[in-house]
């Protein structure tokens, strides 16, 4: 490894040579591809549209997609173990409904936040337990979870509920200025979640077990790893992240809406795939998922900057990108196996 890594002296003497010789670890290839795509898109946008090249474009993408980053982080854990969580969009909607209705009936903001996060985690826990102990496919269990959460939204209220709580509105209108540019507190929350997730995945026993279970559950079991706890744990994490994303979403929209976040699970899955995580599990980085979200967000920016492109090009582009990354993954896995 040390022979491959360029030293600073190399870089100084012959930069092109050093770049040519530099080979990052293979596990970073997919993420690098995503980052390259993001930079390429940003460059193309900067050339085509006036004002696109401002850093605020990227920061705005972060502002508008902070909840999706949190969601994609949770989804990454699940997909790394080879599972899938279809319930996240509905859990986001349920969280906004719980937050809005409890705030309306006068609960204090901290209590509401704890309640929402607990609800999401408990839902995740239940799904994880059923998936692991009854050996039912994650797809169908989380489908049930999706129906359940959506149904509960309607039990809470048939109409959307506005949020007028002071803590929530001040959080929503708050901005953090960085030089001439700004982000919102939600972005900070999303980035903190991202960092925590990366630390958990790469520096804890739980994180290593997540990768091991995704690589081969059988082997992980034979190695004596805590497969049961890990498999259930990732759904708890995903449920928690969905609830947190729901809180961010309720702050973003300042309402609880039972038809909100329909299809958001697909955006989250698409972001994870575009971020280079293998859907069969065992390989991928949360950083990739975050960049995947940025790529999705940048497509939206393209369309709003252009003005002549219709909104449906977003969906078509996401589909095409999804296909491209799935095909690349396929080639990649075929070569290694």
């Amino acid at each position, binding site marked *: 490894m040390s022979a491959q890594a360029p030293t600073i002296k190399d870089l100084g003497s012959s930069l092109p040579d050093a770049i040519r010789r530099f080979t990052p670890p293979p596990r970073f290839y997919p993420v690098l591809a995503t980052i390259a795509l993001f930079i390429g898109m940003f460059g193309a946008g900067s050339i085509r549209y006036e004002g696109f090249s401002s850093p605020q474009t990227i920061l705005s993408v972060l502002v508008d997609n902070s909840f999706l980053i949190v969601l994609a982080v949770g989804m990454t854990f699940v997909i790394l173990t080879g599972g*899938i969580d279809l319930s996240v969009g509905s859990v986001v909607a349920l969280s906004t409904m719980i937050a809005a209705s409890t705030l309306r009936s006068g609960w204090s903001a901290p209590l509401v936040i704890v309640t929402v996060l607990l609800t999401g985690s408990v839902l995740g826990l239940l799904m994880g337990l*059923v998936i692991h*102990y*009854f*050996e*039912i*496919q994650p*797809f*169908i*269990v989380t*489908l*049930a*979870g*999706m*129906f*359940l959460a*959506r*149904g*509960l939204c*309607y*039990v809470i209220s*048939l109409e959307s509920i506005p949020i007028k709580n002071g803590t929530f509105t001040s959080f929503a209108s708050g901005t953090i200025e960085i030089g001439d540019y700004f982000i919102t507190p939600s972005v900070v929350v999303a980035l903190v979640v991202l960092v925590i997730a990366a630390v958990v995945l790469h520096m804890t026993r739980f994180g290593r077990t997540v990768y091991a279970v995704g690589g081969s559950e059988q082997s992980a079991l034979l190695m004596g790893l805590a497969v049961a706890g890990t498999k259930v744990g990732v759904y708890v994490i995903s449920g928690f992240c969905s609830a947190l994303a729901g809180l961010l979403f309720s702050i973003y929209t300042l309402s609880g809406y*039972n038809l909100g976040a329909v299809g958001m699970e*697909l955006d989250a*899955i*698409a972001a994870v*795939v575009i971020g280079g995580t293998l*859907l*069969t599990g065992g390989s991928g980085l949360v950083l990739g998922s975050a960049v995947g979200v940025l790529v999705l967000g940048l497509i939206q920016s393209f369309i709003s900057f252009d003005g002549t492109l*219709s*909104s*449906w*090009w*977003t*969906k*078509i582009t*996401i*589909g*095409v990108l*999804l*296909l491209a990354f*799935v*095909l690349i993954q*396929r080639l990649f896995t075929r070569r290694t196996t």
Partner: protein
Amino acid sequence: MRDLGLRFVRHNLFWPTLALVLLLLLNLTKTPDFFSLRVQDGHLYGSLIDILRNSAPTLLIALGMTLVIATRGIDLSVGAVAAISGAVACTYMAGSPDESTAGRAIIAMTMAVGVAVLLGVWNGFLVSVLGIQPIIATLVLMTAGRGLAMLITDGQITTVNNSLFGKVSTGFVVGLPIAILIALAVFAITAVLTRRTALGMLIEAVGINPEASRLAGVRARTITWTVYVFVAFCSGIAGLMIASNTSAADANAAGLFIELDAILAVVIGGTSLAGGRFSLTGTLIGAMFIQTLATTIPTMGIPAETNYLFKAVVVIVVCLLQSPKARAALSVRRPSSLLAKGATS
């Protein structure tokens, strides 16, 4: 006598059928004339006919989905394919000078189903030739498909004025709604093709072990490819029914969540998501059950939107009933005592 009863209870269609019957009877308590059918202008009307007619699109897609699931696959793109099919038909008719003639409607519908079949070829190619996981391969079209449908209709809700096209969903032949007849015809053809030829067995073989069946001389790749084309064909027809029902193509709302209902119908019918054995009759009952549930909830005075909650309960119960682990945990006493009774009688 007991033996017969036991065999009845243990039949794999017993529980779905019982659930459907109970649900229908529940309706009877609220609406006493629930089962009554009346003939008006030579057409059959009644709640049961309504349920059958409204379940036709789901049933069609669920039939295709049954075969896909039997090969251990899944197709998430069916709703998008249905939307595209409706969009193609309506846009073509709305764009032609003689919009309301029967000829146009026939060309439009043929085109729509043709496009749907092409999309199925695409899905099948990704799954069977490139070897991409079915859930992801079809996710591509699920995401892009709605965009394509909007591209075709230019984001508008395209309305058409064509009597023949309208009849696909609302018309009657020999007293029965055409939608029901189409769905039942596809059901019958599928049943004959899979159960009177070796095709059904081959599909099950591919689902149980694709590699082993390939080594045994089954053309696993062709069979997998075919089922995806078939489900897209069914979705295309279902899309026409949905569009015909309102005489309009709504790229956003047409067939939304129908993939989930179709999968649910298949699962309720007793076909395992793990592939292998499948039951077309089970799927028929499953599709009817979902539609009956959707009808029952408002009848009971519960808001129709809470439908999701009941569906969630159904999914959980059905999955637990199917899971060998859950069965072992739940029914330690019951089946063994039943078996013992059966053995002594």
